[in-house]
């Protein structure tokens, strides 16, 4: 690995000041499961690592009047063991469990997953269907935005070099919302998603209310399928309506051919898996 400086600042403010001072030559270090690999193998001009993984402001998982706050530096393992997450956002737990393997989940953080911003990021669809928001901190203070606005393109987020992802918020009304996540990879462990998908919805008087569908690895960023959500809203939960929503998801996706799978195979997965998570969400909504 190249020669690097390592700094572990004491506060978020110090971290932001360091990043602002050093610009492109500095990079925040979270779990390191992506960044350390990149530093070993790809050229670049990173010379300073600012370790933000231990910063108090970015850690912790707690429920407030506003909803559930997940610190960006919460590891997947911490999310998987957290009683609030297990009870109120079980599909965020399920998505976390599909990442890498035990060792990856013990180091890797949910914030790192979002900031790395690969199209297949497993935590993204599960968070998107719960209308998650993210807080970003920089030299101009904090700002909050819907998680969809955070993703710009493959490996590109809205973050400026001096900015950091502070935490992720799931609004109170969506805690416990019937939801389902499914990841399809070539293996159960240590595999990226060919397609991952999540759905969430409520049933009121026999009609679907506030449906959400999000997909990963089918477009340059994780995406919501707004057209399918609009289609389903107020409809009866029939098999035909679910099939139509999944068909819309296929037409709204732009999967690529790569060495893992062809675009046409991914389209078949989108149809099948979208139906599957919608059906599962309806089962949960019916049971509750």
């Amino acid at each position, binding site marked *: 690995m190249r*020669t690097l400086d390592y700094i572990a600042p004491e506060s978020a403010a110090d971290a932001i000041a360091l990043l602002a001072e050093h610009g492109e030559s500095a990079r925040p270090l979270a779990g390191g499961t992506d960044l350390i690999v990149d530093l*070993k193998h790809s050229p670049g001009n990173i010379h300073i690592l600012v370790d933000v993984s231990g910063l108090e402001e970015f850690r912790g998982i707690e429920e407030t009047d506003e909803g559930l706050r997940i610190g960006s530096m919460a590891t997947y393992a911490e999310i998987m063991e957290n009683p609030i997450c297990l009870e109120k956002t079980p599909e965020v737990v399920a998505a976390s469990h599909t990442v890498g393997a035990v060792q990856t989940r013990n180091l890797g953080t949910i914030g790192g997953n979002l900031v790395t911003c690969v199209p297949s990021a497993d935590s993204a669809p599960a968070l998107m269907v719960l209308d998650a928001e993210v807080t970003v901190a920089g030299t101009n203070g904090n700002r909050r935005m819907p998680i969809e606005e955070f993703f710009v393109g493959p490996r590109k987020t809205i973050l400026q070099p001096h900015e950091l992802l502070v935490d992720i918020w799931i609004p109170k009304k969506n805690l416990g919302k019937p939801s389902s996540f499914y990841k399809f990879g070539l293996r*159960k462990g240590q595999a990226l998603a060919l397609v991952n998908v999540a759905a969430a919805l409520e049933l009121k008087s026999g009609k679907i209310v506030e449906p959400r569908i999000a997909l990963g690895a089918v477009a340059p960023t994780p995406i919501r399928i707004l057209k399918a959500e609009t289609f389903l809203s107020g409809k009866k939960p029939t098999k035909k309506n679910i099939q139509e929503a999944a068909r819309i998801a296929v037409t709204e996706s732009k999967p690529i051919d790569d060495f893992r799978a062809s675009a046409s195979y991914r389209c078949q997965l989108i149809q099948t898996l979208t139906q599957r998570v919608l059906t599962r969400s309806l089962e949960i909504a019916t049971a509750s």
Partner: protein
Amino acid sequence: MLVELKVNGEPRSADVPPETTLLKMLREYLNLTGAKLGCDVGDCGTCTVIVDGVSVNSCLMLAARANGHEVTTIEGLANSNELHPLQEKFEEHGALQCGFCGPGMLISAKNLLDKNPDPTVFEVRDALAGNLCRCTGYTKIIEAVIDAGRVMNAEQANS
């Protein structure tokens, strides 16, 4: 930079360049060559060690990050008198052939049994998903881990 940590219960330290991984520090500065360098990208798991009670790929963790923390490596499993039950059961079941995955396999298995001494086959497979073995086909490894869990449970019940 000076990195001070506790390895297998003993305080150890070394002056290492900041980009040094924990694996490199263990192997090249502390002469603990049990954890192996395999893929160097966090896929194979042969570098697995336990840091503060959780297993990590030491090839992906900077030594600086481990400063002040407790590390358990494969060298910490056996003492001079006896093997760890996992090691005994791996031997008994013929769970290793070339042995290169062994240090990581055993540490991942220990990390599982420390938290869940009576795992199901599914739980063992999930716990070892980050450890590749190219020899055995995993079946004997899984049997050995479940058997070792039984032994450890029985020992605990008798103590």
